[in-house]
């Protein structure tokens, strides 16, 4: 009996093995646990990169597999960060307030503690009351639930509205971008209850772990991110390797045909869109405690476009491609923009990479789109001498105008 679906067992196994080795090596070299060759801040950078790889996987699921170019997945990532940030900031501030009030002659009432916490958190935006959306901020469990629910529900509502009116292709991309813009503009407002453009800060201080040095906390988060990436990768492999994945790729290649097979295409898109939004939220919840601060600029539309850039450069339609793209581009970017890259003196002008990196990135992105649509992942095909059929090679039909419409809905 043949296997029904060509699972990607080999690439999955290799990926997990590499991830395990990478985690082990970083752990052994870290300051917190190992010999200290890798600084704590770099451990954090690597941990954050793993989270970016996870959100890139979720982007690859919607775009690479189902053909929905979402320009909103980084917003879901940020929302996850905000949700966990609310608990971190509340709980941490409460600890500080309780400690400082312990010296008072009279023990504080619950109301006094809450008022003092609110004053600490919201003084910067000129109020001293907890907004309604902070109702569950005192409960880690509730906020962890919200990390998944808030992006999921937002994506669900948006997706339901968009998919049911058959908005697809570039229209959908633009609409998701508008959603992202609306969300970030909303978060920029000072009276929204999330501290406006100040964002949430001090997230690297984990409540209850004040005694633990950051060197150790960073390694723990690194492990957490690696575990989440492995789990997310396995989950995604499971989703795309079966019939569900087959239907998704069918939707990407010929949505109408899938519909005529009896599959409710809109429901599939919705499940995938909302599900990947949840995944993005989880990635964000792991990312921002390592970054230490989240503000609305993180959710700006440009961030979601960069996410698409990573996936495109890494190679969409294959999960490890997304991981490679996110890891490679974000690490290279931070190397160039961090000022570590040496300047290039041309005699009449010195190229400073801090200034020129984005120009190079933008142009190389154009080149990748034009000449290497499979991205870095395509190199692996060359290694395996696996040449896929050209999907676009079929005749274009009697009317080229019709084709344009059809392709637009891919």
């Amino acid at each position: 009996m043949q296997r029904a679906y060509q699972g990607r067992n080999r690439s999955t196994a290799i990926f997990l093995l590499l991830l395990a080795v990478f985690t082990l090596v970083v752990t052994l070299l870290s300051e917190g646990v190992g010999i200290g060759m890798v600084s704590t801040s770099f451990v954090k950078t690597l941990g954050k990169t793993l989270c970016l790889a996870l959100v890139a996987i979720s982007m690859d699921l919607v775009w690479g597999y189902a053909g929905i170019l979402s320009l909103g997945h980084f917003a879901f990532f940020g929302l996850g960060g905000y949700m966990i940030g609310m608990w971190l900031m509340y709980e941490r501030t409460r600890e500080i307030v309780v400690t400082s009030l312990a010296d008072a002659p009279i023990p504080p009432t619950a109301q006094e503690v809450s008022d003092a916490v609110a004053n600490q958190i919201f003084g910067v935006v000129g109020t001293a009351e907890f907004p309604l959306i902070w109702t569950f901020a005192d409960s880690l469990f509730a906020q962890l639930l919200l990390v998944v629910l808030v992006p999921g529900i937002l994506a669900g509502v948006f997706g339901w509205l968009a998919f049911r009116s058959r908005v697809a292709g570039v229209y959908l991309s633009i609409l998701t971008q508008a959603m992202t813009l609306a969300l970030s503009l909303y978060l920029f407002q000072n009276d929204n209850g999330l501290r406006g453009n100040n964002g949430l800060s001090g997230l690297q201080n984990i409540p209850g772990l004040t005694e633990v040095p950051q060197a150790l906390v960073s390694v723990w988060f690194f492990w957490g991110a690696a575990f989440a990436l492995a789990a997310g990768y396995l989950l995604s492999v499971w989703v795309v390797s079966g019939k569900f994945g087959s239907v998704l790729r069918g939707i990407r290649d010929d949505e109408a045909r899938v519909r005529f097979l009896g599959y409710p295409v809109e429901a599939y898109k919705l499940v995938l869109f909302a599900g990947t939004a949840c995944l993005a939220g989880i990635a964000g919840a792991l990312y921002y405690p390592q970054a230490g601060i989240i503000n609305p600029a993180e959710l700006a539309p440009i961030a979601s476009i960069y996410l698409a850039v990573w996936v495109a450069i890494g190679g969409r339609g294959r999960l490890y491609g997304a991981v490679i793209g996110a890891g490679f581009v974000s690490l290279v970017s931070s190397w160039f923009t961090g000022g570590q890259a040496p300047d290039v003196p041309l005699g009449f002008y010195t190229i400073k990479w801090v200034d020129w990196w984005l120009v190079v990135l933008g142009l190389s992105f154009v080149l990748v789109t034009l000449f290497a649509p499979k991205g870095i992942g395509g190199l692996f095909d060359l290694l395996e001498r696996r040449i896929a059929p050209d999907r676009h090679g079929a005749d274009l039909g009697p009317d080229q105008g019709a084709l344009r419409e059809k392709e637009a809905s891919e």
Partner: protein
Amino acid sequence: MKNLLLAVLAVAMSCTLLHAQEAPMQTILQEQSALILDNSRRTVAPAIAAVSDSGLPQAQDVLQAWQAKNLWQRSADRLFFRGEKVEGKTYALYDFDSGEVVGEAPSSELKQIKPNSGIRALIGSALVRFQLQDPDPKRRLAALTSVQRNPSAEVLPSLRESLAEESDPEILAMKQRAERLLTMAYDADEDQRIAAMSEMSGDLGVDVRATLNPMLSTRRAVFEGPPPDTLNIPETLVPGETIGVTEAYDTLVAANLVPARVTADEVRNALAEHIVGGTVGGVPVHRLDDPDIRLQAYAALAQEGKVPPAPDTAQIAQALAAHSFVKVYLEPSARVTDAASEALDTIALTVGANQTFDLILDGLSLTSIYFLAAIGLAITFGVMGVINMAHGEFIMMGAYTGYVVQQIVPNHTASILLAIPLAFAVTFAAGVLMERLVIRWLYNRPLETLLATFGVSIALQQLAKNIFGTQARPLTSPSWLDGAWVINDVVAISYIRIAIFVLAVFFLCVYLFIMRRTRLGLETRAVTQNPSMAASMGINLNKVNMMTFGLGSGIAGVAGVAIGLFAKVTSELGSDYIVQSFMTVVVGGVGNIWGTLAGAAMIGFLQKGIEWFNPSNTLAAQTFMIVFIIMFIQFRPRGIIALKGRAAGD
């Protein structure tokens, strides 16, 4: 007694020394001398009135000297003079009646009259009468301005008196208006006031509202039992409903009718002060983290008399029930307040109508900005099906072109006239270049076009940052575009926005002309409808695509110059407009210029409309607008003006 004798003696002497006919002002001053020397705000009024009502031309001099502390009395003969310092402590003395110097004296032989500020203000009001009739129109105007700034009942008669004498029609109109306003506020006759109010109730001037509003100002009053009928009461306040319980009780406290509340903070501080051996009022300290237990402990302390007792809820309720809370108009007459609020209502209606008109103008100007920004996109996206994410950067390039031109050509008018075609040329070239290098390889792959042009957009934005820096560059409009066309106190529109409106209409016409009257337009429409058929008819697809893309990009460049005139030119200029531009095209309906216009109008008016509800928060307006658009797409997925049937595809 001795002083009185001396004063009587002085008056008697002055009568003998002076003849009233020869020195009328001095006579008046001597008559009022007691009041003048008394130097008290409460009693001095008759003296000022005597001078100012004397009808003498010298009166103004006297009052001015008096107000400026230049009025001196010679101790020897008790006569009043205007003193002017000569040198050291010697003063030249001018006689008011003759206006001539009558002598000099050291300050030790003189007594300076030093009116306090209250008196000086009274003198000032009396002086207004003279200033309002001053032969110099500038001084009349200055006096009128000061009347408008500090209106008071006292100046009203002077103002009315000056109306008859006024020769300058402009000043006369202003005076008449000021007279009406003062009548509304200060006339002794209620009917006069009410008549003035109904007369002015159609007026949009801010000054009318500023005069009417204080008439309706209220204070809060508390009475035991029902309030007296004599007061002009617009509203009775019910604790817990129209006034907060705490606020109501604090009003009672302020009126010294009840003992003060004790706040939670005061309770805590009082408890902290009275900790004795780990307990307060018999309660162990560690249990004080509960507000109820804190109150118990406090009550215990109050029983011991260590702290003032705190009224409990029942007492507060009882106190509130026993009193009535009302708002009272400061203006006692109900007829006047009714007329004032009626006049204000009428004005509010007129203002509302004008604000709506102003809002429409604002919306129109925003519409033309969005239309200008989106028209190029409508061509590339609508006609060619190409998503150009670098469109915003073309707008930015246009704006920077304008900036560079201004560095070379200093004359602003010339530089703008030069910048518009140059910006078109620059972005046209950039568009054609991009079409040749990138986009033509990606026709029929819209998502990849989107990504590739986004790459171009990142690169161009960073390039602009590297060349021009991150700080905003100014693009100054010519001086004839400064200022605004002011229609009335509510409606005004700046010339620059009118210019942008004209530019938008111009480009609409250009577009229509090109599409309907030129070979390029014909070919473009043919290519849009059926590319392979068009190609087989001998149309050069490459050329048409190149030209169309160039045209769309060129218009973006011109839009950039226009936008740069009122916004700051930065490398992010384009990205601020890109999402709105896409929204405009999508909402309007792809492939139709009227759709783009409708989309721009909808987004422009919507944004202004939402801003009107919450003017302080443009971010919220944009948020709501986008949410609205997402909802709108639900109902018309193909936009306002949609292509129907098979031609639209699926």
